[in-house]
């Protein structure tokens, strides 16, 4: 009843092609953005920032980056964290070797390094497809693992590959407090998210989706598979690189190569599968799910155990988390293989018709 598009007529193509074509959607999203920028920094607790909000914002960006490659262009990649690592260590090198460089510039340069790395490791996709490509992308992952551990130049000769940053500021404003970090990350997410949405609904986005859906037919209508695939790798890696910078600089503070391990790559893949492939919003849903789930489990399990009057050790709790996480993944994939984004759009469909059933 409230969600109908009745009366919303579009009189220009421009209006028809807006990101949020339905007025109610526009209002809701603007309200959400306003809330996220203006209200949250003042009301959220320190714990909320550290444990949920900041990781959520950064991982949404990373998931978005990976979704461009996997969801929109159809190239399965198991090496997402490698690109984050290249971004993080790249930006670190710029900051350390060029003192005084603006933070934003260092961040963008980190992204560019990641993009270059992505294009190089994306070249095989021109010949290799499907699961073979997925496994081949692990080459990027393990190479990055090794590079930052063994090649001392990248870590300024740190013995274990561990590095740290501090004293971050932008335009003279220090970014030490949690709300400040949160706002900076959120701004980056908003800017890159908008740019991604524009790319994805434009010509290059259609090229990516054409390659995903049927690359032989795509060649016949004049799309160059090489250009499409390599730009997908480049854009995706750039975003992942920037997310890596944020993750290292603003969430971890100090890190070593293991912070960007295969585990993170797989988590990213979970996020976009559960959130929804080929959906910007889905990336954020997925990130929220994967970040919040372990926290919920660590809270719920002991409480549940106490209900049954059973003492549960931390190791046992960790094991139980694994079991439940595994089961949830499989269950979710059975119930909604297209992810939370599909659930969301189905929900909206029902909202359109409410209070009628069909």
């Amino acid at each position, binding site marked *: 009843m409230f969600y109908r598009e009745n009366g919303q007529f579009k009189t220009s193509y421009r209006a028809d092609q807006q990101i949020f074509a339905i007025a109610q959607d526009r209002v809701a999203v603007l309200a959400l953005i306003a809330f996220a920028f203006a209200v949250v920094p003042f009301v959220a607790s320190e714990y909320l920032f550290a444990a949920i909000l900041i990781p959520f914002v950064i991982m949404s960006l990373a998931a978005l980056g990976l979704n461009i490659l996997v969801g929109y262009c159809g190239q399965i990649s198991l090496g997402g964290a490698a690109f984050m690592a290249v971004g993080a260590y790249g930006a670190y090198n710029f900051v350390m070797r060029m003192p005084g460089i603006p933070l934003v510039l260092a961040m963008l340069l980190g992204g560019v390094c990641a993009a270059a790395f992505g294009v190089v490791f994306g070249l095989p996709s021109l010949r290799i497809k499907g699961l*073979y490509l997925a*496994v081949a992308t692990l080459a990027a992952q393990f190479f990055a693992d090794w590079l930052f551990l063994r090649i001392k130049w990248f870590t300024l000769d740190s013995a274990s590959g561990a590095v740290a940053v501090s004293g971050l500021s932008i335009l003279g404003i220090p970014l030490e407090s949690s709300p400040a970090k949160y706002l900076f990350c959120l701004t980056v997410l908003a800017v890159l998210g908008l740019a991604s949405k524009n790319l994805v609904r434009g010509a290059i986005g259609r090229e990516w989706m054409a390659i995903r859906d049927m690359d032989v037919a795509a060649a016949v209508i004049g799309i160059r598979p090489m250009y499409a695939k390599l730009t997908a790798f480049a854009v995706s890696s750039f975003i992942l690189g920037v997310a890596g910078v944020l993750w290292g600089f603003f969430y971890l503070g100090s890190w070593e190569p293991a912070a960007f391990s295969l585990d993170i790559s*797989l988590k990213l893949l979970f996020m976009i599968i559960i959130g929804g492939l080929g959906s910007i919003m889905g990336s954020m849903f997925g990130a929220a799910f994967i970040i919040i789930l372990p926290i919920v489990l660590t809270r719920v399990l002991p409480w549940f155990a106490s209900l049954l009057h059973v003492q549960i050790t931390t190791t046992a709790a960790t094991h139980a988390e694994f*079991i439940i996480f595994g089961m949830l993944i499989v269950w979710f994939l059975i119930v909604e*293989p297209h992810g939370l984004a599909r659930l969301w759009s189905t929900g909206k469909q029902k909202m359109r018709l409410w209070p009628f059933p069909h």
Partner: protein
Amino acid sequence: MGFFLETLISGLMTGMLYALVALGFVLIFKASSVFNFAQGVMVLFAALAMARLAEWIPQWTGIESKVLANVLAFIGAALLMFLVAWLVERLALRHLVNQSETTLLMATLGIAYFLEGVGQTVFGGDIYKIDIGMPKDPIFVLKGLFDGGLLVDPEDLVAACIAAALVALLALFFQKTTTGRALRAVADDHQAAQSVGIPLSRIWVIVWCVAGVAALVAGMVWGSKLGVQFSLSTLALRALPVVILGGLTSVPGAIVGGLIIGASEKLSEVFLGPFVGGGIEIWFAYVLALVFLLFRPQGLFGEKIIDRV
């Protein structure tokens, strides 16, 4: 020269051990087009089961003979893997029949997390031993040709023979038995196989059982060598380049791929590694497999991927 040969032989044998793990991947992919990311965890799970059962069976039944205890433990672990196979098919695979490759891959990842949690809860998280009487003392061969002879690890040698025997058995199974033929039909075309009355779900259970036994053998061999611990599950990551190099659908490919990867890994680490800081084994194997794929995108023996318009 002698040192080079030693490294080569050691690498080839390690390669056979990788092939053991790779076999599990290939079997499951061949019959159900599922890339089983949980294979590594299955190896760990099976090894844990066998290790612990070998400890517990004497405690429960008072049997003294270690050989008997080991045999019973092996059988027990195998039965457990059959149960896992049945559960996986029943609860997961059956409901994911027409989903995309990526979805199925993620599902096996979920299964991996699940098995890891269950394994550690039921069997414990420490390091355990599997002692099946493998010879540990190094032996020296070709003493006549090389000064002092070439060092060969007998444990690896025995393991390589076990792997070869398993492969031969599987090859016989696929080619000569009716179930084997049914498996090959399913691997070719699910729907066509169904339409001639081959029960898909039963075939999948059988395949996962066979893969489970392959995992058990791999776990037994590796566990005897390294001890049964968490790192066994990451072993599968070392075996992945073998799978894609050999071709996702080829059993002989797993062997050939294993030999190539095993040898190159060892040789590159020993001869190239010192120049670049060491520790290059793991990515070298992947990059090598990747280079091969550039020339043959379907692996050495894999089926060509045909796109029809």
